[in-house]
């Protein structure tokens, strides 16, 4: 007999933020302190539920949760395997830091910040946990709708402009997603991922081309979310325009696209003969091109936050190597890189918010400023820059090292090594340049300095903001100290993912027992 929390473990990370977002909607506009309290309580519960799920999935096979006891493949099913639990845990950590940072005053800029923030968590967690592709679409939409509102939070033309492009692009992406789902349902008669995997084994030759088309469209949408090169131009603008805590939470969103793609590829499309060669060398080339362009973007960024946005794009490019290689060792290393790059990316966004605040009017522009930046922020920047650039001994270095040694067996290893190492060099140069501009350069004209110092009030940084930023830096250092246990876990995650029969068996124990009606 399983305990209540084991039985209902998979749905808690979706349910907790969902309930609290409804409560927060009811409390909108009243008692800001109470709203913060509810949001903080919900996020703490989410942290506990995610940690519980992470522990459960580590020693149990994948947990299938059929909503309303409608047996798969007919009902809605959530599946918690190690990959989903890892994603949910990462989201909870980023959410806690972003919320702490936002509760210093950013949340007061709009009435519904906390409710929308919790809805964003519903979407992200749901996308990690869902076991069928239509609900993946629904959770993607929940995630995107919330992200549109969070992106515009705080107002300003810059946000409206980048927001409009972001929304339009994602709406077009949703249309493509739905066409892919229609094709899958029309040919395979199911939308449950495990059932798709079973049906793909026996797809007729006539329908194979339609299924391949559906798979190609589906991967196109995932690539749009994951921001691969020709589909990535929205990301730097959107992430640079968002408020610092929002951008920190967004650091996980490209990862959602990559995880969804990895899951669909490894569980359903790769084992079937009809769709085996959908992802191949072309995606590796596209991913490497993404890394190269992102490195140039990092070099040319004129603000610290847009530099951070280009860094997110660069790590997305590295992670896009995982689905086409579809190999257990590469996935294990890649998942460690995913965790550390998400934490580091979010921390840089928070730190750039802090630096912008401490520099008054100059903000996070990479120009000399009259006001000096506090020493603690300089140290934080140094740690993060070294991690992001992949310098030893930080976790970014370990992540890259593991990934590079894992890909050394693959045919395109030489090219992958060259691009990743060169991009690391360019990133190091760009971050060193940015740091010296931000901290050491003083304006040429000393008169304006005196004038600015006289007129500008001394910027105040709230303790919560510092705590949030340095909390994430601490997590990034913990990833270094506990590199062994974390990489062992990602190894077990990858091993489980690359044995799709476990996943399929957890969802549909006996495929022959399912009664099916043949269609015209």
């Amino acid at each position, binding site marked *: 007999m399983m305990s209540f929390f084991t039985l209902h473990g998979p749905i808690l990370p979706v349910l907790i933020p969902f309930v609290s977002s409804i409560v927060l909607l009811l409390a909108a506009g009243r008692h800001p302190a109470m709203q913060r309290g509810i949001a903080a309580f919900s996020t703490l519960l989410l942290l506990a539920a995610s940690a519980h799920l992470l522990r459960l999935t580590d020693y149990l096979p994948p947990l299938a949760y059929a909503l309303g006891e409608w047996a798969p493949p007919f009902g809605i099913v959530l599946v918690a395997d190690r990959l989903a639990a890892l994603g949910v845990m990462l989201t909870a950590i980023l959410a806690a830091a972003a919320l702490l940072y936002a509760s210093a005053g950013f949340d007061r800029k709009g009435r519904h910040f906390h409710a929308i923030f919790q809805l964003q968590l519903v979407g992200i967690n749901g996308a990690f946990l869902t076991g069928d592709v239509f609900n993946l679409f*629904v959770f993607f*939409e929940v995630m995107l709708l919330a992200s549109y*509102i969070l992106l515009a939070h705080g107002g300003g033309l810059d946000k409206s402009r980048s927001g409009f492009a972001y*929304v339009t692009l994602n709406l077009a992406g949703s249309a493509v997603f739905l066409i892919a*789902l229609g094709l899958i*349902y029309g040919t395979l008669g199911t939308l449950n991922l495990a059932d798709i995997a079973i049906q793909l084994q026996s797809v007729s030759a006539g329908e194979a081309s339609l299924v391949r088309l559906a798979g190609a469209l589906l991967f196109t949408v995932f690539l749009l979310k994951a921001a691969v090169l020709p589909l990535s131009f929205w990301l730097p603008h959107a992430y640079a325009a968002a408020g610092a805590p929002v951008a920190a939470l967004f650091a996980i969103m490209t990862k959602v696209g990559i995880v969804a793609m990895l899951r669909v590829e490894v569980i359903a499309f790769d084992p079937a003969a009809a769709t085996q060669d959908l992802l191949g060398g072309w995606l590796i080339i596209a991913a490497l091109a993404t890394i190269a362009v992102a490195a140039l973007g990092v070099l040319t960024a004129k603000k610290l936050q847009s530099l951070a946005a280009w860094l997110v794009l660069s790590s997305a490019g590295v992670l896009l190597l995982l689905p086409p290689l579809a190999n257990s060792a590469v996935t294990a290393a890649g998942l460690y890189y995913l965790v550390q790059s998400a934490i580091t990316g979010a921390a840089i966004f928070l730190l750039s918010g802090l630096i912008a605040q401490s520099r008054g009017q100059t903000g996070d522009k990479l120009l000399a400023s009259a006001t000096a930046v506090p020493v603690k922020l300089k140290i934080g920047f140094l740690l993060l820059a070294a991690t992001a650039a992949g310098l030893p001994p930080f976790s970014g270095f370990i992540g890259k090292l593991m990934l590079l040694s894992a890909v050394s067996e693959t045919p395109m290893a030489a090219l992958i090594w060259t691009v990743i190492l060169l991009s690391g060099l360019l990133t190091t140069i760009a971050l060193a340049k940015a740091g010296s501009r931000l901290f050491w350069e003083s304006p040429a004209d000393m008169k304006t300095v005196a004038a600015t110092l006289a007129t500008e009030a001394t910027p105040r940084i709230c303790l919560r903001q510092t705590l949030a930023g340095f909390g994430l830096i601490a997590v990034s250092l913990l990833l270094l100290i506990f590199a062994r246990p974390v990489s062992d876990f990602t190894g077990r995650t990858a091993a489980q993912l690359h044995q799709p029969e476990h996943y399929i068996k957890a969802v549909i124990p006996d495929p022959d027992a399912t009664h099916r009606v043949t269609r015209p």
Partner: protein
Amino acid sequence: MEAMLAIAIGLLSSCGVYLMLRARTFPVILGLTLLSYAVNLFLFASGRLTINAPPIISAEASHYTDPIPQALVLTAIVIGFGMTAYIVTLALRGLSESGDDHVDMTVESAENDKEGEPS
């Protein structure tokens, strides 16, 4: 009937794509709406076209139509409706802030660019 539906979907999506490529916010939103109509029709057809048949169990029925695409379409319509409402608001806000309905919201953005934000 299949041919008619196929032509309708094709016409809607080609008009939608054409409008989406325009430079003003209103045609872009109309294009997105047309595209979502095309997608909804397409989804509806994914369960095969059946005439005069109920989607739920009934004593008189001799054959049934597939109920799942209908549920999927309903979900897609609701989501599309919410998205359209939001993007209209966003376009109006851009219009009031920049005084222009160009998708790049260009009037003041030229000034922003001078200040160092990459465009």
